[in-house]
């Protein structure tokens, strides 16, 4: 029987029935709360997802513009500056810092970009030719990277929310499909066991009562017999023989009534 396995191992006592009932109550409240949390998170999640989708599409455009401004640099400088740029990179001017955002108890980090002052690795790039394009290209790319940082925040939020929602949903489902049915099963089991005990007890009591009654009847008959014996010590013994069988019959009749 599957029901037997799907309950907790408790002794079917009234005390554990009480505990189980309290547990069921708790599970239901928890379920409601978690469900609500999951819904709130999912709502936020969908919103973020939509924004990611938009931002990713927008990014394509932003990066194209940035690429074109790099093409402009190549055009103006009249050569490829890639190598020189790679070699003169020293210290990041464009950095990020993380801050936190609280959504229904979940801390979502968000990146924020900032520019550090004073370290300009490429100030002289294109000094003789194309310097203005280089500066403009830097601005364009800085704007593009800002957009990328924003997208990265969204994506981090997405990954974390995804994880959190999975956990919450797992909990909701666990409560809904495992804990609640199991607790209910346990309660049912305890109840049936208790009923069984009740019936046994009732039968036992009945049995005891019956026995008592029979004993009383027997005692009574004994006493009566002795009394009669004492009275009729001198009377005819056949009379005694007559009364005996009649008594036994009556007793049998009594038993019949009971069962």
């Amino acid at each position, binding site marked *: 029987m599957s029901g037997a396995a799907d309950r907790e191992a408790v002794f079917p006592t009234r005390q554990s029935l009480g505990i189980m009932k309290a547990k069921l109550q708790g599970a239901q409240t928890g379920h409601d709360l978690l469900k609500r949390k999951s819904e709130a998170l999912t709502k936020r999640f969908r919103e973020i997802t939509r924004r*990611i989708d938009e931002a990713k*599409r927008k990014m394509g455009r932003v990066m194209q513009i940035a*690429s074109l401004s790099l093409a402009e640099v190549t055009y103006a400088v009249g050569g490829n500056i*890639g190598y020189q740029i790679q070699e003169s*990179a020293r*210290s990041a001017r464009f*950095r990020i810092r993380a801050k936190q955002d609280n959504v229904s108890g979940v801390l979502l980090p968000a990146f924020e970009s900032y520019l550090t002052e004073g370290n300009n690795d490429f100030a002289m790039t294109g000094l003789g030719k194309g310097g203005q394009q280089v500066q403009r290209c830097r601005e364009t790319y800085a704007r593009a990277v800002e957009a990328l940082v924003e997208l990265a925040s969204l*994506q981090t939020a997405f990954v974390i929310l995804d994880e959190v929602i999975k956990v919450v949903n797992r909990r909701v489902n666990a409560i809904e499909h495992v804990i609640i049915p199991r607790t209910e099963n346990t309660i049912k089991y305890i109840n049936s066991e208790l009923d069984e005990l009740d019936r046994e007890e009732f039968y036992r009591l009945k049995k005891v009562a019956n026995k008592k009654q029979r004993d009383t009847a027997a005692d009574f008959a004994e006493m009566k017999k002795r009394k009669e014996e004492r009275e009729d010590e001198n009377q005819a013994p056949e009379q005694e023989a007559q009364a005996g069988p009649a008594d036994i019959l009556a007793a049998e009749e009594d038993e019949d009534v009971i069962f």
Partner: protein
Amino acid sequence: MTTSQADFRDRQFLAVIGDEDSVTGLLLAGIGHVTPPPDNQKNFLVVDAKTDNAAIEAAFERFTTERKDIGIVLINQHIADRIRHRIDTYTQAFPTVLEIPSKDHPYDPEKDSVLRRVRRLFGE
């Protein structure tokens, strides 16, 4: 989540794996950083036709796992394609891996790991 909270405070750099033009552009924006000697670790990798996939994976590994000061890893989509299995199995929140278009390879939303997850989740 508890570990990442303490974790991301120090993450203040971006890293990039890309073709020469993308890297040049992003470096111009000022994200380039070379750690002080003796390490001299760069936070960027220029990939061309000659770079083998192992080198890309190694750089990806270094930026995402070893270095604790990188918050965002930018990677060109066509390069991400070359190590797609690594990207697809990467699920950490930090650092964030972001696929970006390159000059010669326009952005294809169908290939993006995250967008594909988005689609899958909503059964689109």
